[in-house]
């Protein structure tokens, strides 16, 4: 009996998810033992044509990390979708958009303006732009199209499972892979992590008061946090209460607040909004002006609450300002 075939692919990502696979250490050997990896651009020299040559559905599973920003990424994941029995969105970027998704706070134009013109490292700031198609001595050359938005994987193709995390914790990866290999398939659409927030496994949970009220929010560099007390109780914006567990609360163990890479639990539609609601509830004062002061202590609220989930959020991206209209301002 031939081993099930699997593929790995990366889109708009940092490479950390690939590292995470490698970080499986010996476990990776079990995986390799159990499956036949037919496509893994970061590690093995297979071509897209090899994938295209497969039968539809021939791949038992593909693991795709990264968000989708270019036409090339979209096309390849569509191809992989056709060839795969199960698609796993691997990591925060593929599931929710991740850090690259924060690019949705800018328009495509402004990104190109910056990258091709304004950035300090651009020497020839003449406004040159990538040309998607041009003739070269070798023939006609084409570059992928740079899309308007960063999209999550399931905004492009059907996704069967999601592995959360930036990057996904080794234990969850191993569990997921083995479950797929052994045919213990969870319900489609499942997130392959515990459906309960991080406080459930945080060793500092017991130090959080029942009636916690915050009088000032701090950013991590502003204070030296006590290493044993709940970080929220110290005024640090920790997204643990609104973020899935399964990571082992490693950031908190390193005395850093949770930034939400494991995404929301299943009952939450918009991770950032719910995190915001919970954080706002901690504000002590009733005075509108003082509330505004506390709210302002959370510098960059979009980046704080939507660090990993902007493209998956209800608003998806920053709204382009409407053209100025006539009519009186009220």
């Amino acid at each position, binding site marked *: 009996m031939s081993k099930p075939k699997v593929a790995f692919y990366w889109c708009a990502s940092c490479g950390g998810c690939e590292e995470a696979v490698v970080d499986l250490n010996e476990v990776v050997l079990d995986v390799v033992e159990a499956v036949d990896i037919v496509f893994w651009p970061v590690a093995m020299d297979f071509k897209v044509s090899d994938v295209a040559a497969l039968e539809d559905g021939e791949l038992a599973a593909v693991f795709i990390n990264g968000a989708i920003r270019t036409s090339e990424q979209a096309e390849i994941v569509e191809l992989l979708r056709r060839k795969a029995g199960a698609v796993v969105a691997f990591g925060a970027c593929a599931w929710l958009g991740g850090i690259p998704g924060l690019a949705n706070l800018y328009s495509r134009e402004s990104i190109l303006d910056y990258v091709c013109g304004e950035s300090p490292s651009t020497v020839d700031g003449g406004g040159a732009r990538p040309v998607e198609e041009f003739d070269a001595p070798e023939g006609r050359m084409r570059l992928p199209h740079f899309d308007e938005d960063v999209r999550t994987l399931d905004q492009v193709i059907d996704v069967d499972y999601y592995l959360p995390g930036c990057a996904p914790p080794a234990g969850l990866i191993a569990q997921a892979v083995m479950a797929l290999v052994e045919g213990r398939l969870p*319900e489609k*659409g499942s997130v392959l992590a515990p*459906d*309960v*927030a*991080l*406080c*459930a496994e945080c060793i500092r*949970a*017991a130090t*959080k*008061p*029942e*009636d*916690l*009220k915050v009088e000032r929010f701090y950013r991590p560099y502003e204070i030296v946090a006590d290493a044993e007390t709940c970080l929220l109780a110290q005024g640090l914006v920790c997204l*643990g*209460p*609104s973020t899935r*567990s399964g990571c082992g609360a490693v950031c908190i163990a390193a005395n850093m607040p949770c930034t939400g890479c494991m995404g*929301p*639990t*299943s*009952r*939450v*539609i918009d991770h950032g909004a*719910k*995190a915001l*609601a*919970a954080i*706002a*509830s*901690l504000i002590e004062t009733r005075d509108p002006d003082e509330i505004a002061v506390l709210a302002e202590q959370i510098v960059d609220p979009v980046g704080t609450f939507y660090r990993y989930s902007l493209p998956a959020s209800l608003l998806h991206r920053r709204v382009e300002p409407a053209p100025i209209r006539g009519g009186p301002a009220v």
Partner: protein
Amino acid sequence: MLEPEAGLTTQPISTNGGPRIGVYVCHCGLNIAGKVDIEAVVEFASTLPDVAVARDYKFMCSDPGQELIEKDLREGLVNRVVVASCSPLMHEATFRRATAEGGQSPFYFQMASIREHVSWVTADGAEATEKAKALVAGAVRRVALHEYLEPRRADVRPDVMVVGGGIAGIHAALTMADAGKHVYLVEREPTIGGHMAKFDKTFPTLDCSACILTPKMSAVRSNPNITLWTYSDVVGVEGFTGDFTVRVRHRPRYVKADLCTGCLECIEKCIHKQGKFDDEWNEGLSKRKPIYIPFPQATPAVVVVDPETCIWFKTGKCPQTCIEACERDAFDFEQTETFDEVKVGAMVLATGFKTFDAAKMPEYGYGLYPNVYTSLEVERLLNAAGPTSGEVELRDGSKPKVVGIIHCVGSRDAKHHLWCSKVCCMYSLKLAHMVKERTGAEVYNFYIDMRTPGKGYEEFYDKILKEGVHMVRGRVAGVTDEAASPEEEDHLVIRAEDTLIGSVRRIPVDMVILAVGIEPQPDAQDVRRLFNISCGGEGFFTERHPKLAPVSTFTDGVFLAGACQGPKDIPDTVAQAGAAAAEVLAMVDRGFVMLEANTAHIEDEVCSGCKTCVGLCPFSAISFNEERKKAYVNEVVCKGCGVCVGACPSGAAQQHLFTDAEIFSEIEGVLAYV
């Protein structure tokens, strides 16, 4: 489109297939149909997902209207109901009942308010129809997700409380005590009786006020079912309908109430030989001693020591002749505030009113000219137990020969109170009669309109006219001591337009009586917060419905009686007190109340134990189980605000009837189609 995740939807909808929604659009006569195209709304509703049938009817709240719903439910045509009609605050209970009559959980029901929120407020018919459609779609989308809920019941405690011991509170307390209920009657002043005890006569029959009130006061004292707490106030209310815990503070009288016999020997023997301090009961027209009893029939007949004026309290040096005088050793100068906490099933608020402060209208000279009086002061002058033993005298002891009564002082005045105080016309006529009878003076009444609706009222007006009281129709511009002619010298002059003869008149008088209006008690806002009820913009307590629930409030188990709800004369006050008592009795005798189902709960397996909700609950209904690391809502204590649900960062807290999924669907519904 929002697809709620699997976890967001609630329990299976019904045992026999998915939701089959019936939409019933009410014409409300022409109230809705006159503006909204009912047919278009029905047609639209029938195209919405899960809608099995859409109908319309002239009056959905009528028996045949409700029968439409019940029949469709009974026949299995529908299993969920949307009624598009008036506000849910009006008829939600009616249609929930109809849904239950049809054999479904009453909570498989949702209302769309297309009258108060659409037809009555939208100028354009087409726009109104579109808005109605949107609201119907919202209701349809949401009701499809409603979960099966059992109505909740709570027991009602048998004891009851009345706050305020004026005629309203007295009557309500006696009625309920006579029905066998134990009543706690709490009064702030040292005695019950309220304003009515200050009056001499009552209109239009001219009954002696004391003659009809004091028997009721002594009935309160002697009724074994009534615990009377005077000089006391409510300082805390907790719990909910059927089970309130009320904290009452008793202010120290420095006299043991159970020992004092009301012999008043101590007052006689007080080191102050004469009264020296303003007597509140006589509106400051006489003086009392630091130890006093408000009036001879005060109930309870227990003296009070006023620490503000008592020499012992002020200097610590007094022979304390009062103590010597007391045969029963009733004095206790060490007394401090004490508190009682009682549990009651329902409460009647009868906290009364205050009269308008005439000094706010300097043009009438109150406080400036000594012979300008308020009507309440004149009531005391007329009262045989008052400062002048019933003689109408000016400050210098002389009798007035000409008296002017100015109506509507503070009432019907855009600068003060817009409302009509309802009683002033009649009491001004009464005062005119009494003053004329006692002094033979010429009496002028200055009025804007005469308002005398009520049994025997117009006849009383007629009688006063025949007695020769002058009636000048016109608002008084001012009261002045400027003499423009010799006959005005040493008089007060009332300047008013007489609109009946079309000229401005200056009428010299000896005495001016200001018919001050009725306004809310100054602490009405505090009381309202304490009892969790609402006030109108003017500050009177708001009844649940002006016609159909005139003594109920938006807080179940709290009822209103008397002028705390709005200006009222004695007959209306007593009638309302009786009604409030009847409502309480109906509730207590049934023994249980139905509670709103909209409590919060926490889905145990999703709760991470983050405790965000625990501290947020204003009613401490959420507790944290340290062992299991989960939060838990006590649904008996929960009042259903949903604050915890809005805050729960993992969607574990949900509110019945207001789940996230239901609200998301309603949002989508009101936007998706129209």
